[in-house]
């Protein structure tokens, strides 16, 4: 599903002429198989979020290549990567990233709208997904009217509407209490089991990492040997 080869990335800090290079990822090579749940763990500043941002195409690698579904995405233009994201990747963010002026229904509908689906089809899909995540009664609520768990379920529903083969989750339970966290993790496992969706979960929480088939540990921009299998 995901093949990463010799992936390196650094940030340039400071003003022009006085720039300092901050290496974040140093020659990462890894693979995520189809239908797997892979957790990437590491301390703050280890480079795990940068890895996710590179896979997502939000930033471009300094070196190395990333393939998703055999497509060399690290070489795609911004516009083509956007189209690729819409078609193949779903996102779950720690802070949910819902559009505050849109209702739960509209937030979930957004990827379908961007894809250009007609209203009838959108309604059918969104209603089905709302049922799946148990939010039928909250579809007209705005994010500010929903609890953290409900917001994350909206976020998961949004990630699911276009039936992606891969979902990238960045600290999906980071803003939730333990009870809600368990609920969300259960949903992720259920989706993996029933729909065969591949999950790459970035977390610093060992408990969250436990739901994965594998855990990849990152330290100082490198994968720690011997801790990738669960």
């Amino acid at each position, binding site marked *: 599903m995901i093949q990463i080869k010799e992936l390196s990335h650094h940030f340039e800090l400071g003003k022009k002429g006085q720039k300092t290079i901050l290496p974040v990822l140093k020659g990462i090579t890894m693979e995520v198989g189809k239908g797997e749940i892979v957790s990437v763990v590491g301390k703050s500043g280890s480079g795990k979020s940068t890895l996710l941002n590179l896979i997502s195409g939000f930033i471009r690698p300094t070196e190395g290549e990333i393939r998703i579904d055999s497509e060399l995405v690290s070489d795609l233009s911004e516009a083509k990567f956007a189209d690729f*994201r819409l*078609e193949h990747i779903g996102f779950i963010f720690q802070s949910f990233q819902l559009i505050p002026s849109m209702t739960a229904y509209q937030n979930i509908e957004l990827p379908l709208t961007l894809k*250009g689906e007609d209203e009838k089809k959108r309604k059918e899909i969104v209603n089905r997904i709302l049922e799946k995540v148990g939010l039928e009664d909250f579809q007209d609520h705005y994010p500010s009217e929903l609890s953290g768990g409900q917001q994350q379920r909206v976020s998961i529903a949004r990630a699911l509407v276009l039936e992606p083969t891969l979902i990238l989750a960045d600290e999906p339970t980071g803003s939730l209490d333990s009870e809600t966290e368990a609920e969300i993790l259960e949903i992720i496992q259920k989706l993996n089991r029933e729909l065969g969706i591949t999950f790459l979960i970035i977390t610093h929480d060992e408990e969250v990492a436990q739901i994965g088939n594998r855990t990849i540990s990152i330290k100082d921009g490198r994968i720690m040997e011997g801790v990738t299998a669960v």
Partner: protein
Amino acid sequence: MRYKDKYRFIRQNIKKNRARTFMTILATAMGCAFLIVLASVGYGLQQSVVKETLEDQVVTQIQVHAKEVDGNFEAITIEDIEKLEKVEHVKAVTRRNQLGQIPIYTLDNYKAETMAVSAHYPSEVASGLELSEGRLPENPNEVVVGYHFSDKLFIDSAENVYDEETNEVKEEFRFKGNVMDQTITMTVKQDEEGKVKEEIQLTIVGVLEKPGREWMIDQDVYISQEVFEQIETFTGSVGGVIAAEPDQMETGHLEIFDLVNVYADNLEAVQGIVETLKEENYATYSVVSEMEQINTLFTIAKAGLILVGTIALIIASIGIYNTMTMAVTERAPDIGIMKAIGANPKTIKQIFLLESSYIGIIGAVIGTIVAYATSVLVNIGLPMILEMAFGEEMPEGLQFSSIPLSLVLIAVTICLVVTILSGMRPAKRATQIDVLKAMRREI
């Protein structure tokens, strides 16, 4: 993404900032209205001038005054007429000669003094001459008279026959009957004092139709070529002029014409005929040529007015730029989320460009309505104000402001172009928003 959904997005966004959007639309509407009203003055005055000019003259008519030969202007001869008749798209060439003196006509105890004109009837008929009653002359002593000829007749013995105000024959002295089939006596003089006179009996067989304009008066008597020549022989001068000195007399009739008009078979052909005649050194005048000059002048004036009006729109566009820049900044987190889940930069750009176009369209529509209302008010109010201020009555049908569809289209196009251009940079900025910074609310 479908246009319907983009439009839904825009409406949602506008709803969030109603006051700001309203003010921006208002500025655009004012700019658009200013442009239209300003240019409408050019259109209105052009329309009035053109209307006035066209109403006074026959549009397919080309007056041929003379022919230039070696720097001198010579009268039009029968050879010229034959040549003119052969020009492509010429329907008719009328030629008239005005008698060089004003004869006196008597009908029973009524008399009148009015011009006599010799006309060539076949060409007159071909040019569109029509009678209100009777028929065209068939023999030399038959004549047709102008529609108002009978108004000129008054009782011979009466005094103070003319009304001082209107300068027309007073009602009580006027001829009340019908001049049709009446025999009139035309008296022409050989000298100023009228010592030697000749009387010619003429029968009125037709009356010309009423002139097209209310104020036009046709009181002439249209005599035959033979009668005209008879008068020339009597006076011993060309055109029947009363010569000051006997030795200035030139006897014999010359085949030249005072009033020569060429009629085109359609309006579009007029300019081509004028060009041909110019090449042949004929001095011409046509209302179409005059129209071209008038239209050129007004086109320049209108272009200038539109340019000035556009400046107002450019000022309004600063407001649009500001509104759109603020909108992009405010919506940066939403844009970041949309980009993260797969919104194409092109889609983001289109949404913002559509939003600025939306402001432009609404502004243009409101501006056009306001401009139409202003135009109506100006056309009603300004003549009243000017009449009150200067005490002069404005010409009938004078239009200060006119808004044709073409002006609306020009204004709306300019408005749209200006608003789209002003939305370009903010829209581009929206596409360049960094997803991560936007999602972290760092923008």
